[in-house]
C-alpha cells in the first residue's frame, strides 16, 4: 500500500474536499468565505466570461435540511430583484452531490470594515437608508431577512450597498399586508408550515428548517422574540430591531447602547430612533421599515423625528442647526445695520 506523505494528504483533502465543478459552466478560482451552512467560492463563468460567487453546501446532500435551506435561499434571492440585494444567477447540484447557487461576485468591503473609513455620521446614515430600501423591498415581497448585521452588508467600490446572506430568510404570507399588522400588533403573519419541493423531488416542511423554538440569528442584532425561538410570531418588526442595532452600530460602533462617558455624544433624536427600533416589545417599535427610514431621513434633513418629543430648547437648537446659515446671515446683516446706524448718528 502506497505511503502518503503529509503534503499528499493535504492535497487530497484539498482536491477531494473542493467542489467538483465538472459539467458546469464554472471554473473554481478561490475560497472567499465560510458561512453557517456553506462555503463561498469565486469562480469564472466560462460562458459569460465573468467572475461569480458560488455558495456551496458543505457535504454532499447528506443533510437534507441544509440543502433545502440553500435552495430556498436561492429562490428567495431570485424573487427579490433589487439593486440593494445580491442577484442570484443559477442554482443546482454539483457532480459530487453538493447543492450550490451562483450569485453576483461583489467586489467590496463588509460594512463593518467599510465604515472604518467613513467618519461622517450623515454619510453613515445615507448608507443605512440604502439598507433600509433593500429590507423594505424584501418586506413588501413578504420576506424577512432575520440576520441583518454588518457582516451581511457589502459596500461596493462605487458605494453600492448590498444586503447579503438570506440563508435565514423567512417567507411571510403574501396575503398579509403591513396594514393588518398595524391593526393587530400581535398578529401572527407567518404561513402555516407548508410543503417545500427539493431538488430531488422530495418534499419537506419549512418548519423543519426554521421551526418554532429554533434560535437562529446573531446575538446583539437578533430581536428578543427571535432569540426566544418564537419563530411563528416574528414579523417585520423583528428585522426593524436588527436595523435599530445596525443603526446603533453605525453611529456608535456597538449594536447595543453603551455608557456615553468617554464616547462621542449621540444626538438625542438619533438615540431615540435606535431606542424605538430596538424596543423589547415589538409593539413599541416602528411598524415598518419605511417609518424608521423616514425618521432617519428627517434627522438628516434637520427635521423633528417621530421617535422623540422635543423640548422647546431642543426645537430651538434644531431650528438653529437647520437654518444656521440664514440665521447667521440675518444676524450679520442686522449687526451691520446696527453698526451703520451707530456710525451715522455719531
Amino acid at each position, binding site marked *: 500500500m*502506497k505511503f502518503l506523505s503529509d503534503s499528499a*494528504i493535504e492535497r487530497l483533502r484539498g482536491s*477531494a474536499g473542493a467542489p467538483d465543478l465538472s459539467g458546469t459552466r464554472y471554473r473554481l478560482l478561490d475560497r472567499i468565505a465560510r458561512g453557517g451552512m456553506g462555503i463561498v467560492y469565486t469562480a469564472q463563468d466560462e460562458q459569460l466570461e465573468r467572475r461569480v460567487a458560488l455558495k456551496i453546501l458543505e457535504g454532499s446532500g447528506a443533510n437534507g435540511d441544509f440543502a433545502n435551506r440553500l435552495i430556498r435561499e436561492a429562490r428567495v434571492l431570485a424573487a427579490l430583484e433589487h439593486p440593494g440585494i445580491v442577484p442570484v444567477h443559477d442554482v443546482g447540484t454539483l457532480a459530487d452531490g453538493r447543492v450550490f447557487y451562483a450569485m453576483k461576485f461583489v467586489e467590496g468591503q463588509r460594512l463593518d470594515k467599510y465604515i472604518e473609513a467613513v467618519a461622517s455620521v450623515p454619510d453613515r446614515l445615507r448608507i443605512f437608508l440604502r439598507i433600509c430600501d433593500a429590507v423594505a423591498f424584501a418586506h413588501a415581497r413578504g420576506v424577512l431577512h432575520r440576520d441583518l448585521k454588518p457582516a451581511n452588508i457589502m459596500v461596493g467600490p462605487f458605494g453600492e450597498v448590498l444586503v447579503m446572506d438570506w440563508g435565514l430568510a423567512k417567507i411571510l404570507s403574501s396575503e398579509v399586508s403591513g396594514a393588518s399588522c398595524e391593526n393587530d400588533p400581535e398578529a401572527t403573519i407567518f404561513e402555516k408550515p407548508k410543503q417545500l419541493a427539493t431538488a430531488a423531488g422530495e418534499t419537506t416542511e419549512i418548519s423543519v428548517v426554521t421551526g418554532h423554538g429554533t434560535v437562529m440569528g446573531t446575538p446583539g442584532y437578533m430581536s428578543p422574540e427571535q432569540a426566544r425561538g418564537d419563530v411563528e410570531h416574528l414579523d417585520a418588526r423583528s428585522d426593524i430591531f436588527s436595523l435599530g442595532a445596525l443603526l446603533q452600530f453605525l453611529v456608535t460602533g456597538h449594536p447595543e447602547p453603551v455608557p456615553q462617558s468617554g464616547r462621542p455624544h449621540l444626538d438625542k433624536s438619533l438615540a431615540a430612533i435606535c431606542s424605538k427600533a430596538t424596543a423589547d416589545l415589538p409593539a413599541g417599535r416602528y411598524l415598518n421599515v419605511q417609518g424608521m427610514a423616514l425618521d432617519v431621513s428627517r434627522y438628516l434633513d434637520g427635521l423633528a423625528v417621530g421617535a422623540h418629543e422635543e423640548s422647546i430648547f431642543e426645537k430651538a437648537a434644531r431650528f438653529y442647526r437647520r437654518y444656521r446659515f440664514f440665521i447667521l446671515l440675518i444676524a450679520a446683516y442686522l449687526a451691520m445695520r446696527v453698526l451703520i446706524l451707530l456710525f451715522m448718528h455719531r
Partner: protein
Amino acid sequence: MDKEDFGAGGDRFPPTRRSVIEAARSIDSGEREQALELLCAAYWKPVYKYIRWRWNRPAEAAQDLTQGFFAELLERELLDKFDASRSRLRTYLRVCVDSFVMNEDKAGRRQKRGGSISHVALDFAAAEEELGATAIDPAKIASPESLEEFFEKEWMRSLFALAVEDLRKFSDERDRARTFRLFEAYDLEGNEKLSYDQLSKDYGISVTDVTNALAWARREFRRIALDRLRELCGSEDEFQREAGAAFGWDAK
C-alpha cells in the same frame, strides 16, 4: 478488498455497508471477525505508530502489542462497550490502546498473538519506514493534544491510503488505469511544478481530458473514502463530523 466487493458491471461503488460497530456486535461470529479485520486494516498502522511514539516501545515489542491489542479487542468484546453518543470511535480506541499497554506492563507479559487477525497482512517494516519519514516535533511529545493529533493524522493517512488502493482497483476494473496514473502523478506524488498542461503533453491527451480525468478520480476517491469512513464510525453524527474534518470543510 476483493474484486467481487465492487459488484459486476455498473458504474457505481457498492452501497454503503453497515457500520463496523454494528457488525462487531453481530451474533454471527463470521461477521464479527470481518468487522475486526476491517477495523484492523484501518487502524493497525496508527496503533502501531502510536505505541512506538507514545509508549516509546522498540519495534518488536510494538508489533506484539499491536497484534495483542486487536486480539484483545475481539476476545474482550471491547467494541460492545463503545458508546457512540459519548465519544468518537477513534478516541475510544486510542484510550483502549493506552489501557492495554499499561495493563500489559503491569502484568509484565508480552505474548505473540494475532491469530484472529491473520487475514490482514501487517507490514510492520513498511510502517517503520513510514514512521521514519514522518516529521515529529520532539517538543510536542508530552502534550495530550499532540497525542490525539498524532493518532488522528496517522488514522487519516491510513484511511486515505486504503481509499487510494480501492480507487486503483476500481479504476483498473473500469479500464481507467490511465486516469488513476494521472491522479497519482498530480495529487499523490507532490510535484508542485507539475501542471495539467505538462500532464497533457506527457500522456498525449488534451488538457480538457486531464481536467475531466482528475475530476472523476477525485470524485470517486472522495466517495470511496467517505464510504470507508462511514463504516468506521459509530454513528451518523460521528460520520458527519469526521467527514467534515477529513475534507477540511471546517478548516476556515
